[in-house]
């Protein structure tokens, strides 16, 4: 297993190199002068020259790329053109917010999606099956930014029961340890903060989690239907095993592999969808950071954030692959 993990890590190198080349090239895809594009038409020639010098745009491509990779390997992502702050520091302060939101959305999607998929498969063609699968079909077609805005209108404007933006109310105090607010409030036993953070997470989490939820539900159902036809399920049933044990221990564990693949891939969707969701809910994470950078033409920030998100996505997919072994010991890695 360790050998396999090492081999997979080595195989990541060309992908990560490619990712770095693509993100590096972004700035060179800008039509015309990137420096002028960033500083605007009113900038003076000396300001432009200074920025070109800072970003190393006057050097040959190969030198620029070498420096780009060298800096990344040292953990230096450069400086924001707008705020002049270190991008790595800015990303590090926003990453927990995005991770908290995406993980919350994914847990929501998995719990509801898998449960709905299992029940739909066990009670095939029942009203629940029809209802949940129609819901799933609708779910994959929903524009999340629209869903987000409609939820704000209903729950914040009309009913006034959920907050429309941010991670936590201003009047709540929380001692942060991990910067994952939900976790921090649990660790410190701060129930007022927990309730407040949870209510802030709910709408963006649902908006972000709806599409993965629908996809997971459909995948679980079809995978479960396949497994429930197998002989070992009939055997388990014949020897008088309780229904819930058959479904959850025998069938679901075997049906989970394709679902796991989908979950891994959906993480990418969540990280991408975070840009839209965080923009709507003013969620102070990387997605909103990317959006503001795009709007402000802060290309080094766009470059670095996208690189970081791609690396996270690649690693999540690697972890998904490694989890296969747990769910299907038949898979041989040698």
């Amino acid at each position, binding site marked *: 297993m360790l050998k396999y993990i090492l081999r997979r890590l080595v195989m990541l190198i060309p992908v990560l190199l490619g990712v770095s080349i693509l993100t590096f090239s972004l700035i060179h895809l800008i039509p015309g002068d990137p420096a002028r594009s960033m500083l605007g038409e009113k900038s003076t020639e000396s300001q432009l020259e200074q920025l070109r010098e800072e970003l190393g745009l006057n050097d040959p491509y190969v030198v620029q790329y070498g420096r780009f990779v060298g800096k990344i390997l040292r953990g230096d992502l450069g400086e924001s053109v707008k705020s002049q702050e270190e991008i790595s520091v800015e990303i590090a302060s926003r990453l927990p917010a995005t991770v908290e939101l995406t993980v919350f959305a994914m847990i929501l999607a998995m719990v509801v999606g898998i449960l709905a998929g299992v029940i739909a498969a066990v009670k095939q063609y029942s009203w629940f099956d029809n209802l949940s699968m129609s819901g799933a079909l609708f779910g994959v077609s929903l524009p999340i930014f629209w869903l987000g805005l409609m939820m704000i209108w209903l729950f914040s404007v009309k009913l006034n029961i959920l907050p429309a933006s941010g991670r936590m109310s201003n009047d709540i105090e929380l001692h942060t340890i991990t910067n994952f607010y939900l976790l921090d409030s649990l660790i410190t036993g701060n129930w007022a903060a927990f309730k407040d953070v949870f209510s802030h997470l709910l709408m963006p989490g649902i908006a972000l989690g709806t599409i993965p939820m629908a996809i997971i539900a459909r995948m679980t159902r079809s995978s479960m239907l396949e497994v429930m036809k197998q002989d070992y399920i009939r055997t388990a049933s014949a020897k008088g095993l309780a229904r819930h044990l058959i479904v959850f221990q025998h069938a679901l564990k075997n049906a989970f592999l394709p679902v796991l693949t989908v979950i891994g891939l959906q993480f990418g969707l969540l990280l991408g969808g975070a840009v839209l969701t965080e923009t709507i809910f003013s969620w102070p994470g990387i997605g909103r950071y990317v959006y503001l950078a*795009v709007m402000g033409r802060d290309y080094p920030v766009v470059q670095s954030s996208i690189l970081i998100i791609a690396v996270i996505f690649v690693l999540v997919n690697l972890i998904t692959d490694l989890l296969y072994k747990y769910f299907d010991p038949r898979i041989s890695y040698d």
Partner: protein
Amino acid sequence: MAAIPQTSPTPPEVPEQKTTATPKSSSLWLDAFSRLIRSKTSFIGLLIILLLLVVAAMAPVVATHDPTDQQLLDRYLAPSGDHWLGTDELGRDIYSRIVYGTRISIQIGLIAVGISAVIGILLGGIAGYFGRWIDQIIMRVIDILMAFPSILLAIALVAVLGASLTNAMIAIGIVGVPQFARIVRSTVLSVKETEYIEAARAIGAKNNRILFQHVLPNCLAPIIVQATLSIGTAILDAAGLSFLGLGAQPPSPEWGAMLSDGRAALQTAPWVVAFPGLAIFLVVLGFNLFGDGLRDALDPRLKQ
């Protein structure tokens, strides 16, 4: 020997004719089509797509107002007999804007998916057919593209190319390439091992001819399914980009841009946001339902 009963409980003529007759030969496409329209969900999908096409073609007839005509005195009017879906921040008729927006959605769907399909089919076809190092290089490039969450890569591309509907379509087209390339490659891998390809090679057909005239035409079924499902995704992604201000620019009645414009008035005039979003949802649902049905209809394993 037992006597064969002279009377049978049910008249066997009709079923017998059915079972003994040689199966009527029908093409894959005809067969798939008949299965497709028998499925309730894909039929609804087809109806939605047809409705979209009719509305787009007849937009000037179907619309009640000029989609860009501003009536500043009629700002944020609620839905009424005169303005069926209300008016927006510039007093424009939302219903008419949604009607004209269908044209933009079709344009986005076809052009973006066209870009993905052409590049993806070429890359996947070449990788699968020629194999070896060409396959390795092409598929590694595809892996790299797939390392980015697609909407994020599209946002980054539009950010550098400049915000416009054309650039949004190009970006969405590019991020859609990997899916086509992978599907085509895997189909080509199985098709190229068939006997008719061997026969074509035996009579001396050149690689180009085999690939483009024999292999790729036999990969059409999965390509069409992917294209249908991709149109829905492309419309959704383009609306997302326009919502962020990176796609269609004012005063274009693109649905995502309309939604974005209406955000500021969500509290007082929710219809400005609600209806364009419903339109996006309906059209994407249509393509998803139809694409799903198409996949089932073209899948020979599900053939009765």
